[in-house]
């Protein structure tokens, strides 16, 4: 675990010295801010669930951008081989990179706390739905970054990894819409849709199945990414 934390810290520090990370963060906050201002214009009540719904959709696009470099770029530059030659397991490397990504995403979410603070200056928003909404966004981000990391492990190039991540995230997001096409399996497909699990959080409800769903997507994706890295030994 300490190896993973060391790698995660190294990842976070690399973001701090990367202009690309700042540009991605600026892009995220600019789009997020536009959503907030647009949503604000139609608001009569102090609530942020509308903005959070937009932010959830934005996560589908930001996650591939953040994760595409993690493994694909390191593999291209040869950094990955150096890392894997160190006395750490593949899983520790993947978990470390994942925690670094998640840390960066969390910082982005923390920056958006400016929105509820602004709202609180002007009105009295309910705290409960804000807390559950942010928890939902964090968990959605965790699952999305997991899939992004897996795509980065599968893709040889950053662009391929990003496209793979985007497609898989969009498919998971829209699974409930696709559910109608599959008679008996509707419930399973609907359950697998990432969009379905965010709604209760935005409404102020934290359900065990939603927390476990996002967590299990993140865990399975990391495990699969570690196995993909391990495949270099037998491929």
């Amino acid at each position, binding site marked *: 675990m300490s190896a993973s934390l060391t790698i995660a810290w190294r990842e976070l520090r690399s973001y701090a*010295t*990367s*202009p*690309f990370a*700042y*540009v991605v*963060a*600026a*892009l995220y*906050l*600019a789009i*997020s*801010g*536009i959503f*907030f*201002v647009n949503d*604000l*214009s139609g*608001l*009569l*009540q*102090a609530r942020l669930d509308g903005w959070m719904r937009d932010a959830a959709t934005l996560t589908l696009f930001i996650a591939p951008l953040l994760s595409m470099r993690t493994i694909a770029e390191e593999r291209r530059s040869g950094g990955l081989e150096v890392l894997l030659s160190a006395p750490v397991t593949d899983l520790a490397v993947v978990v470390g990179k994942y925690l670094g990504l998640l840390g960066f995403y969390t910082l982005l979410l923390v*920056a958006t706390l*400016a*929105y509820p603070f*602004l*709202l609180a200056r*002007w*009105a*009295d*928003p*309910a*705290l*409960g*739905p804000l807390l*559950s909404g942010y928890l939902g966004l964090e968990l959605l981000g965790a699952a999305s970054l997991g899939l992004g990391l897996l795509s980065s492990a599968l893709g040889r190039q950053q662009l391929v990894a990003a496209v793979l991540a985007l497609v898989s995230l969009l498919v998971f997001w829209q699974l409930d819409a696709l559910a109608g096409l599959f008679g008996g399996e509707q419930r399973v497909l609907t*359950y697998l849709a990432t969009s379905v699990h965010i*709604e*209760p959080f935005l*409404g*102020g*409800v*934290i*359900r*065990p*199945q939603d*927390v*476990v*769903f996002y967590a*299990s*997507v993140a*865990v*399975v994706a990391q*495990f*699969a990414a570690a*196995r993909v890295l391990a*495949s270099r*030994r*037998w*491929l």
Partner: protein
Amino acid sequence: MRAARRLAGFSNTAAAIVVVVALAGGANVLAYRAGSSAIDLTEGNRLTLTSETRRVLGTVRHRLEIDAFLGAGTSGERDARALLGRFADANRRIHADVIDPDAEPGKARRLGITNYGTAVLRYQGRRVDIAAVSEIEVASAVLRLVRGRTPVACFVTGHGEAAIGEEGPSGLSRLAALATRNGFAPKPVSLAGGAVDPSCGVVVVAGPRVPFPDGERDAVIRYLKADGKVLLLVDGLTTTDVNPFTKPWGVDFLGGVVVDAGSNLNNDATTPIIGDFPTANQVVDGVPSLLVPAAAGLRVATPDPRPGLFVNTLARTSAHSLLSVDPEAADQSGSLPGPIVVAAGADFSGVRGSPPVIHRTRLLVVAGVGLAHNAFIDNLGNATFLANGLSWLAQDELLLTIGSRPPGSRPLTVSTTRRNQAVAVTVVGMPGALLAAALAVFLLRRRR
């Protein structure tokens, strides 16, 4: 050799991933089954189904389908989806779907749906349509479907009783709505024909002011003897003698006005807050307290006057109360000391006839009609008490009182100044600062 190594590697990887996916799937199944243990952070736990709704949903023994017809992407659609999801979580026999009538016009036409917002519930070949998808509406519809019948709650008219169509503070429109929500069909009835309408499942006599003509009085007495179910709400201001209705069942109406110095509303001793329910009767289940303005008094026969008749004190005032003939008088020496009984229930059952049939009369007497008036019915536990009372009279094992829990209002005014502030901070300031940081980092790296 290389191919064999690849095959082994691939097999191991596939097997390991399958195991992890299976474990994750198992965790999800367990979490899904624990869906009811959600944490609700909304104000007043607005998004959690009430215990009463859960109790009703627990009685659904067969497949129940709920189809709500709402426009796609609307907030109503999202709310309905979340609400119906909670119903489905509470009982796996409930299958709920939200349908866009524009996207699936065939289904809407097949079910005869012409309005957005309508929901159709189907159970065991029965169907109930509701015009709004709220917890109250859906739970009430489920109750009606499961019960399979809609008892008629007949509100007696013609003696100065408040009307169920009257919306004013002294009207009973909210009591009628409460009855509807709880699966009854309220309707006004006249006793002028000398008999109680045979379609009545429950008869409500709410606040008569003048004496019943002999024929009408006898009609109520006969109805009660013939397995009748009566809710009698009467206060001390009436000139109606209700004892012919109540005495045979072990309850005396004493009249007067309760003066309760110990527990009242805003220091008005004649508006007692009643919190003493010395009974396990289901009528007071979930009732925290009652607000009964201008309550009168009752006396309950003890021991039970005859075999098969059980009389219960349901609610009584505090020990600091008294029953006064004239609350304005300085001398209250003739008053009856508290606690004063203000609600009582009588339940008489016996087996008669050949073949033997169980007969049952139920009478619920409340010495105060004010608690049922529009002005007070939503105070404290009044609505719960009345809904429980109707269900008890109708011999329903189910008890349902679902209050509406609108979200607390948190108004926000977005002026141009505030909007500009938001733009400055969120769209320009924060991203701009990050872009400046990106430039600084870029220049620093180049310099190195």
